[in-house]
């Protein structure tokens, strides 16, 4: 494995490197990148190493009235250890806590999980359910915001342009009248650790004090070319009372979730199996 490397220490240097280099890849935690380059060497590649950039907006977390913003270099471990995130967005905590292993979580970043754009990205799936926004910074220091569901354009493809870097991710605050939300991440695999999801489901369902659903986000992973928001399934839930959802409504909801799936058969599971599991776990969130 060989490549050149640039180690910017500021955002200015980072953007300078992006402007100058023609054939480059970003390296954040590098846990995916190094494995990929070992298997498939890429001649003449320059890695723009993001790990040494000192910039709070790129590495830290900030809460505001609008919600919570994480820098792209915020790690899975930092998500797991953050009390506020666990309390406000349990789905995000769960997805990060079940990602790979303790060692990988120390270095793997939220930005890396998004930019790898794997259909089975765990944190990605949670952030789609949370309807997060991606903040992209270009070489002229201008930012544009794209919603996460339009950020993924295909298998390992994103809306990121060659002159842009993913700078931060913003999660909108929960509806102010909500309490005890139903929020979680279901990951199905053949073992508990170090597992790439066979199917995953992220849900963040916000209910008021009476248990009436005010807002819902449901996303599916490893079931389509990208992580997808099951929009019609989310809409279906609005106005219903979470605890009173009938068996028929559960089935209708699961059917709607399934309509977003177009899984493939691969080494981990068949398409048929993935659909069956997705249908069943969709129903299970009400139980």
């Amino acid at each position, binding site marked *: *494995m*060989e*490549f*050149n*490397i640039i*180690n910017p220490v500021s955002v200015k240097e980072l953007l300078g490197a992006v402007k100058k280099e023609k054939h480059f890849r970003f*390296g954040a935690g*590098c*846990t995916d990148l*190094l*494995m990929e*380059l*070992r298997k498939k060497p890429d001649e003449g590649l320059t*890695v723009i*190493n993001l*790990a*040494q950039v000192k910039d709070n907006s790129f590495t830290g977390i900030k809460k505001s009235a609008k919600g919570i913003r994480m820098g792209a270099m915020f790690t899975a*471990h930092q998500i*797991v*250890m*953050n*009390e506020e995130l*666990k*309390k406000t967005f349990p789905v995000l*905590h769960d997805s990060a*806590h079940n990602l*790979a*292993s*303790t*060692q*990988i979580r*120390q*270095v793997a970043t939220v930005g890396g999980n998004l930019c790898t754009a794997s259909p089975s990205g765990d944190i990605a799936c949670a952030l789609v359910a949370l309807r997060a926004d991606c903040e992209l910074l270009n070489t002229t220091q201008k930012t544009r915001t794209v919603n996460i569901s339009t950020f993924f354009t295909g298998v390992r493809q994103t809306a990121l342009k060659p002159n842009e870097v993913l700078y931060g991710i913003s999660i909108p605050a929960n509806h102010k009248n909500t309490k005890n939300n139903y929020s979680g991440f279901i990951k199905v695999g053949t073992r*508990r*650790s*170090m597992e790439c999801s066979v199917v995953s489901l992220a849900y963040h369902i916000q209910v008021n004090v009476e248990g009436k659903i005010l807002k819902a986000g449901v996303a599916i992973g490893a079931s389509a070319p990208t992580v997808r928001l099951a929009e019609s399934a989310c809409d279906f839930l609005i106005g219903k009372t979470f605890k009173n959802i009938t068996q028929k409504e559960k089935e209708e909801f699961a059917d709607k979730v399934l309509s977003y799936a177009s899984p493939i058969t691969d080494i981990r599971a068949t398409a048929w199996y993935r659909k069956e599991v997705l249908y069943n776990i969709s129903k299970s969130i009400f139980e």
Partner: protein
Amino acid sequence: MMHEITFFLNEKEVTCKVKPATVLLDLIRDGFELKGTKPGCHEGECGACTVLVNDAPVNSCLFLAVNANGKRITTIEGLTNKDGSLHAVQEVLVESGAVQCGFCTSGMAMSIKAMLHQYESGHHVPGESLKNLPDREEIKKYLEGNLCRCTGYVKIIDAAEKLFAKEV
């Protein structure tokens, strides 16, 4: 192009030159001749190469050597007490008979040390913080990135449990 880096390796400041694609595992073993850190899968799956970077456990096979610059790196050789005696983590592994072929042991020891550090410094996964001691499930969860092909997990987890009862 070679990159010059300076870091603390087992509390000693060192400076060296590394290639862009060199990983920390190779630098430790080949550059500094510290063979206690084991190369296993080279994919971040097995955890045999676990070392501590600023007290956090990482797979040194997936950690770029250039990113060690300015950091504190601890390997199994640095775990041993200054007087040469075994660290409490090592001692408890020996006492518990938690070593079979030994290949995973240094990685296991580093992960247990990292967990000990996390608890001693008062950092817990939220929700688990009410307990004083990590239970078996929490130990298993923490050690999920360390494989033992002899499947000697029971004694390893016993050892960690004993250690926490004593130290935390």
